[in-house]
């Protein structure tokens, strides 16, 4: 997604990215990024929390309006849960990245990618 944002921006269309994976987006360098320190899934606000969703979108609009150069990451003021215990559990045995059919699909996709890459097709 960051690659698409960069391409639009380089071709004259201002962009703002909303996301929860701060390290990945910052590594790719996008000009405007609104970060919510949430589990992956709801970069535009908690499900059915209209007020929060409006405020997060507003932060992105404000950034679009005022940025005159690539901007540092803007972090929204919300926390997912009071103790933030979810963070230590990400991708652990207790909470694996993927499992079952999802994991098998992912491994198949990765294998296909390796084959195509080895054949010089991608």
């Amino acid at each position, binding site marked *: *997604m960051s*690659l*698409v*944002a960069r*391409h*639009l*921006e*380089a071709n004259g*269309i*201002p*962009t*703002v*990215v*909303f996301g929860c*994976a*701060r*390290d*990945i987006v910052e*590594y790719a*360098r*996008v*000009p405007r990024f609104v970060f919510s*320190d949430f*589990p*992956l*899934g*709801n*970069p*535009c*606000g*908690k*499900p*059915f*929390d*209209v007020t929060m*969703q*409006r405020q997060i*979108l*507003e932060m992105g*609009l404000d950034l*679009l*309006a005022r*940025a005159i*150069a*690539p901007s540092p990451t803007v972090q929204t003021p919300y926390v997912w849960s009071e*103790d*933030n*215990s979810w*963070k*230590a*559990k*990400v*991708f652990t045995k207790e909470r694996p990245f993927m499992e079952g059919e999802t994991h098998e*699909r992912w*491994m198949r*996709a*990765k294998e296909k*990618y390796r084959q195509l*890459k080895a054949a010089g097709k*991608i």
Partner: protein
Amino acid sequence: MADDYVRYMDKTREYYLAEGYNNPYQWAHFEDTPFTPLTKPLSECRLGLVTTSDIAVLSESGERERFDAETLVGNVYSIPSDVAVERLYSRNEHYDRFETNLNDVNSYCPLTRLREFAAEGRIGSFAGRFHGVYTSYSKRLTMERDAPEVLKRCREDEVDAVILTPV
């Protein structure tokens, strides 16, 4: 630690290693940052929306059927912006299923919020369609095929700025 953000690249690398892959995914990385300023007030701007949230449309009868055949080029597809949000869902499997859900489309694809902001005059308008990009393991295909296709569609939509959302 709880105050610090999660390092997904490190976590993923560890996961790959545990699966026996010692040549893990190379995340996109650049040193430069392209930039285009917004040159007019938001109240006069048409906004576009691009999402990698694997958003999909249920059929009229509520079935999960192929919906993107007419608009799909590479990994890029488009959906009319006036679609009923009740007909939208995400097929993405890479969100934190232990902590949250994708039951509210507006939590990752802010259609309703953009419509509200347009109705209130905060933005000039919301484009007549929005765009999805299925994620690919190939950065080359994303850069050479899909990103130019998104740019082409955004230009056709005559948008002044674009919002991008993953899950």
